[in-house]
């Protein structure tokens, strides 16, 4: 991302005047606030930020921001966001959605987005349930869990989003907590600043439907990776062996769930080239003239494309 045009704005300047219809006490409020604060801290011009939401309670977030806002389809938020970023690299693209959105219906895009180290941020609202459809189990729920609107306890396994992000290739992977706005703000800033694909898992209590993963449940369990000496950074010049150790330590930490739940940054890998740079190497004009910035017709409205060379190979005479 690019915060060279930093503005002096207050977090309120990033709020739209739309009515927020999340439940009182919902963790989503904290995530929204942290996001506003992160944008303010970075002073990003509002017209250079595009927020994309999936479908779910979480997916409504873009409505509440006074940036560009795109409310997409269930499970597809990463595709829309990727398309926009590829076409207009100067946008700061932030994708957001629920855990059902991300890992269940959107699971294929989740793992394939990790394959592209595109400079964008994905924030997943992890509430263990399908909020907007009234509390069914999300894939983040553990086997045996039974939240209040489930008829029977969960017999499907849990997908661990952090672990999945790590093995899919995301180059910045972190976890925050919706009720800790301050730390979360820092993590979001970090994720946005990271020059590659960033995934942030946010533990988000849903007081309406998830009566297991409440404030008190999290309270005892969360700990901060930075406090336990976890080393997350692979720099451009890290030795490969060290890098591999860091990657493996990230996996080991990511497996923790239950009694002790790590938060903070699991991995930041700067050794992998950013995706749009790579495109620019294969297609040199891309950087200067990305799809959204091409002038394609002249003043007379005529096409400016010259196909002569191309025709050459296909011509007979």
């Amino acid at each position, binding site marked *: 991302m690019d915060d060279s045009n930093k503005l002096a704005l207050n977090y309120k300047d990033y709020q739209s005047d739309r009515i927020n219809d999340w439940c009182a006490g919902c963790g989503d409020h904290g995530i929204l606030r942290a996001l506003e604060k992160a944008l303010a801290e970075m002073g990003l011009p509002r017209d250079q930020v595009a927020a994309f939401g999936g479908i779910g309670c979480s997916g409504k977030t873009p409505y509440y921001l006074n940036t560009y806002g795109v409310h997409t*389809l269930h499970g597809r938020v990463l595709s829309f966001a990727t398309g926009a970023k*590829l076409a*207009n690299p100067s946008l700061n693209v932030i994708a957001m959605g629920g855990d059902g959105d991300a890992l269940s219906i959107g699971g294929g895009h989740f793992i394939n987005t990790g394959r592209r180290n595109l400079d964008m941020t994905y924030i997943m609202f992890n509430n263990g349930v399908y909020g907007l459809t009234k509390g069914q189990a999300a894939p983040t729920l553990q086997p045996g869990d039974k939240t209040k609107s489930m008829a029977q306890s969960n017999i499907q396994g849990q997908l661990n989003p952090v672990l999945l992000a790590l093995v899919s290739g995301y180059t910045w992977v972190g976890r925050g907590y919706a009720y800790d706005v301050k730390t979360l703000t820092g993590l979001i800033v970090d994720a946005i600043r990271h020059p590659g694909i960033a995934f942030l898992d946010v533990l988000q209590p849903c007081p309406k439907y998830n009566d297991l993963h409440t404030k008190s449940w999290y309270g005892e369990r969360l700990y901060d990776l930075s406090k336990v000496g976890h080393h997350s950074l692979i720099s451009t010049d890290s030795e490969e062996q060290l890098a591999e150790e860091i990657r493996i330590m990230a996996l080991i930490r990511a497996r923790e769930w239950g009694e002790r739940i790590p938060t903070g940054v699991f991995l930041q890998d700067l050794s992998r080239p950013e995706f749009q740079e790579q495109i620019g190497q294969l297609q040199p004009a891309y950087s200067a003239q990305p799809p959204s910035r091409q002038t394609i017709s002249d003043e007379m409205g005529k096409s*400016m494309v010259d196909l002569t060379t191309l025709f050459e190979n296909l011509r*007979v005479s």
Partner: protein
Amino acid sequence: MVLNLVNQETDNLSWRIGGPQGSGINRIARLFARACATQGAELICRREYHSNIMGRHSYNDILMGAKSAHCHRESTDILVSFDPETLARHALMVTDKGCVLHSSEDADVPLGRLAYLDERLREDLTRRLEAFNLPPSTGGLLQMINQKGVQSFAIPYGQLLTKLAEAVDKPRQWVAAAQNTLAASVSATLMSLAQETLEEAIETAFGGRKDLVELNHQAMLIAYNYTREHISWKGPSIPVNESPGERLLINATQGVALGKLAAGMGFQSYYPISPATDESTFLEAHAGAPLDNGQTSGPLIFQVEDELAAINMASGAALTGARSATSTSGPGFSLMSEGLGWAGMNEVPLVVTLYQRGGPSTGMPTRTDQGDLQFALNAGHGEFPRIILASGDVTSCFYDAAQAFDYAEHYQLPVIHLLDKALTSTLQTIPLPEPSQISIDRGERDIKSSQSLQGVKRFQLTDSGISPRPVLGDPNGQHWTTGVEHSEQGQVTEDPVLREAMMEKRARKLELAAAEIPVSEKLEILGDEASEFTLLTWGSNKGAVLDAMQRLADSGISARAVQLRLLWPLPADELMAILSESSPSVMIEANFSGQLNKLFQQQIGRGCDYVILKYSGRPISGEALFPALMDIHTGSAEPHIVLRNSFE
């Protein structure tokens, strides 16, 4: 109705080459076509192949003439065969004065030994041979056609390859792939193709690889010598257009790709699928098309994880103002239904290029069909406007692909550009397209900046239904888009009154399109405009219809044809007027249920008097259409006619 294949005199010449997939059939056919075209022939080529990588049967036709034929022929004049299966499948399709060039080894192979031959065809051939007291073998088939006058020549490819190995001083195995070139060169000799022209074509085809150029060059010499020495039959000469002008030799996927480049497309996402992939692959290889302001630019072509990602990424890119498209076939399009609706709801200018192939389901991935029209009309839950246009030939692929973006941006909606597999396999000499002729209409843009926190009125209620469009990244242009029903500012609304207004607004755009788009862009009238004998069709059948009309004219029967380009909104008024002056009217479609005819019924209240369909996965030809039309003309036809050919 069952088609009786008739051999007939034509002013064009059909050369067919068949053999196992993956053995280079397609490559040599293109090389040979290029050589013939260079010699001056106008040509149209057809390709049929199985959904398989190596081994199953495939064939290519080249139909050449002094002027361009409109469509392939089902019969052929010269058959070049590499394996006994090709003989089994095509021998009976060779015209009476034609000729068969086959490998000596295939001269007498029992049909029972051909593993890939369809059981049904084996039985059919055996029965036919029995009736003539001939054995069920390739030998029997050759005898059968020899009896009616077809020449056949056994080429000792084995020996020629041994000679070739010696000539280039390489192992026999290494030179085996040049069998194709041997075969093409035999044909070239018989058809008086200038040796230099073939040489040139070889040079072009094998480009950098000196050893291969040399190999194929030697193969050519050996074949020329062999033919002159051993085959006394004098084949027909390659016909020549005396003033050919500047031409391209391309097929529909290339036509579409070039049109997209000319239109300034910025982004295309795709997931591989036959027969759509070739377009994206071609674009990938040539994406950096230069603008004439000297800067090199061109679209980003992006292979993604699936078709859900493909359409939604393309929408995402379109939101930034880039001209954006995705390209697919049936199964992929099915997966795009939801994304199409999002684009419709958010008034996203998006082009979806849909190459129809045999359905339903995986169906017949490499065979043609026009079975997706009704689906394209209705894909996606709920009601939203879209535009659908279909191209009839390679040249219009170019212009239509380009104009699809104009429609998309002007009316701010998804445009589905319908093509079919038959067109993608149609390689044709066409006059040089002219990108400089293309006017670009980018639609109404919103350049005001937002003052309020409510954002720009992205979905402003206007009389035309069109709301000036801001894009992501405009200075101070913040706005919201959403698949949920929304207010002018893109706010979620469930207000009944606003809901009605938005449904009406979106629908108005289509009324506008119906009113604004000139008739010439909606349909094309071909043939004798004054005639009441009216053929109506769409897509790749255009060629067959033109061809059949020529045949009718030759028989003194005048007819006109309506080639429909704009399928939605259907030009109902124009068609109504045409139909009311038609007698009889004949709908021609390559699908099972006559989908355009159904649409006529729905929108105009009447279908055509006759419907001619083909749904074997093979394209309609003028050759097959003509007798059906004759039957209609003489009044002896049923209203529902199915074209069939068991040898395709």
